[in-house]
């Protein structure tokens, strides 16, 4: 083995490199086939007029140019931004509150934790159908109770002015449990002695939460904000199983619009351009979030 010390082949075979590459090969093949290749191919497609049946033709930047003059696309961006701006802060703050409440020695706390997490493992289709009926304007339970309380009946998912907010509520219910688990884990990492020291120093409940617990939760918060933002910008399932973008396009978010363009109207190239714009937007937003959030973590630790 040591005949040609330093030769490439020897380095490759003799070192851990080969074993390493063999170990990552299956994953690498999968990532290249189902990750890198589609990313590259959809970039190519976004410069084509492609109806998925007949031969594509090159159109340069026409798809991208058309996007910014397409009122339906602009509206879908607006819906996505409104949704994200509501969903991310509400779900992260809500999860912190719930996690704080569940991080105490309560009777039956395991049951509550389970109850909060169950929606996460429930299929979106089931959640969608449950909410469709709960929020039905005529037969729904929610309107029934509103009626009992003497409050006016609402259209909910059937009202173009309310549907998007109903989707926010529905997805929060579905996703809160995941955020809560992350926060619970982080909360349990807060050292007991620091809390004791804080209380000896005369810090009240709020003060010790603000000055001791919150800084400890920053990495978890950063992760949740980044992660929730990415999933919020890619909202699709819940729309697909409930409103299908309606009523009157009021819940048509970017990914649902992409789906419509690709698989209802067979505008493959145009859909790929939408995917790319979304991809770049998510990339940019994530970088900003990590820069801003990361700096704060380091300056505090």
């Amino acid at each position, binding site marked *: 083995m040591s005949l040609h010390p330093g030769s490439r082949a020897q380095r490759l075979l003799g070192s851990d490199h080969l074993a390493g590459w063999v170990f990552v090969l299956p994953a690498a093949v999968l990532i290249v086939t189902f990750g890198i290749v589609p990313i590259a191919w959809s970039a190519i497609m976004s410069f084509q007029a492609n109806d998925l049946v007949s031969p594509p033709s090159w159109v340069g930047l026409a798809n991208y140019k058309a996007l910014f003059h397409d009122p339906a696309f602009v509206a879908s961006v607006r819906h996505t931004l409104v949704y994200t701006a509501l969903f991310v802060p509400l779900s992260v703050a809500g999860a912190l509150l719930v996690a704080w409440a569940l991080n105490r020695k309560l009777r039956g706390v395991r049951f509550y934790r389970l109850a909060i997490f169950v929606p996460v493992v429930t299929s979106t289709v089931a959640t969608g159908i449950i909410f469709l009926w709960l929020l039905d304007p005529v*037969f729904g339970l929610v309107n029934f109770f509103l009626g009992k309380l003497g409050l006016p009946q609402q259209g909910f998912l*059937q009202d173009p002015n309310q549907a998007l907010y109903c989707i926010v509520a529905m997805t929060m219910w579905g996703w809160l449990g995941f955020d809560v688990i992350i926060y619970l884990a982080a909360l349990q990492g807060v050292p007991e002695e620091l809390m004791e020291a804080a209380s000896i120093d005369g810090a009240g409940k709020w003060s010790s939460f603000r000055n001791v617990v919150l800084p400890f939760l920053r990495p978890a918060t950063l992760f949740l904000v980044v992660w929730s933002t990415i999933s919020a910008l890619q909202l699709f399932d819940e729309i697909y199983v409930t409103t299908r973008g309606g009523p009157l396009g009021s819940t048509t978010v970017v990914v649902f619009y992409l789906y419509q363009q690709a698989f209802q109207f067979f505008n493959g190239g145009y859909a790929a351009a939408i995917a790319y714009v979304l991809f770049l937007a998510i990339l940019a937003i994530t970088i900003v979030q990590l820069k801003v959030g990361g700096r704060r973590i380091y300056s505090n630790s």
Partner: protein
Amino acid sequence: MKRVTAGMLTLLLVLAALASAGLVLAGCGSSSAGSSSTPSSSPTGVVHITMWHGDLDYAAKADNALVAEWNKANPNIEVTAVYNGGNDFALQKTLTAIAGGKYPDITYIFGSWAANIVKSPKVVTLNDLIAKDKSFDWNDFWPAERLAATVNGKIVGVPALVDNLAIVYNKKLFDQAGLSYPTAQWTWDDLRAAAKKLTDPAKKQFGWAYPADASEDTVWHWEAMLWDYGGDILTPDNKQATFNSPQGVQALTMLGDMATVDKSVYVDTTNTKIQSTFNNGHIGMLVTGPWDLPGFPDVSFGVQVMPANHQTISGPDNWVLLDNGPERVNAAWQFIKWFTDAKQQMYYDQQTGALPIRQSQQQQPDFKAYLGKYPGTDVFVANMGNATKARPTIPQYSKISGFMGTAIVSVLLGKSDAKTALDQAAQQTNAVLAVPGQ
């Protein structure tokens, strides 16, 4: 809550695109590849062909029984029937298979995709085969089927399944309201008045229900009304929208008034709840097709043709033949001709409750037994004669349908009046139709 991400959709999109790209390659090299792939006629002289269908359960059993019968009687042409995994993705799967170079000889394709599939160079247009084959009576198919299978004069497929819309009503609710059942002499005003009488907010009861998710389901219900009022969707040359004609405005105004003035319509913008609501006895009348009837076990229902001129709409699907060389095309043609013949179809319909695709099936000996087995079907069969028009078979139709759907829903929700909404949809439609080369 497992999520479908944008990445997954993009992957699906790319797969679809790869399919079409491969299709192009296959198309370019087809002259050589086509001739080299012919030897499915083995030395024994048996030609093997494959048919993709979307049937399950008793329907698949019926298919298999027919195929077995064929194979027994025709040792020279052996047919294999394969389940395609569901018709919703039949187009993409067929295109992917074509790209891979190994594709079926016969495949089930929704009628609404006729204008898309016809672009594929592997699709066999049937005009010559039909013209040459005196034993095949094309005109025995219902007019709506023939129209839906024809794109720019090219016949894309043989009708595979057919349906139409009629009024299905809850007899008990009519009795309770002291109303007589709908008759064939009904006008639209009669329907409107009955719907109003059947409506009772205290009981959460509605006279009518309308699917309002702005999908094609929203649109085709209204298209039947549009035709009945004497209007049409596009000009005969498919160049201009005409659904915003005075007749169209009249039809949509009527519908809108029922929903917003009379409040007699259960408007389901999610289009998921109408069937169960009707089955629970909260809705007096539906406009729907024969496929819905098995979903109403708890209701004693009757069926009546549409009001006034009885115009209805039909959504026929097709068996599309793909080119695997002349020998296999000929074999596929022989088989599908037999398979869609009146006798075989009568057997299929008896097993499944599907409507007859051929007019001559009404003279089949089993026809009476079939009607007895599926109550309400008699009206739907007779109603096929009222389906004299078809939606335009052009690739832009899905977009146009989207514009019309939005217009209809905005009127149903009281967000717009019929004229404004239809004019806007017509403007968008004309813009799409003006794009050349589609």
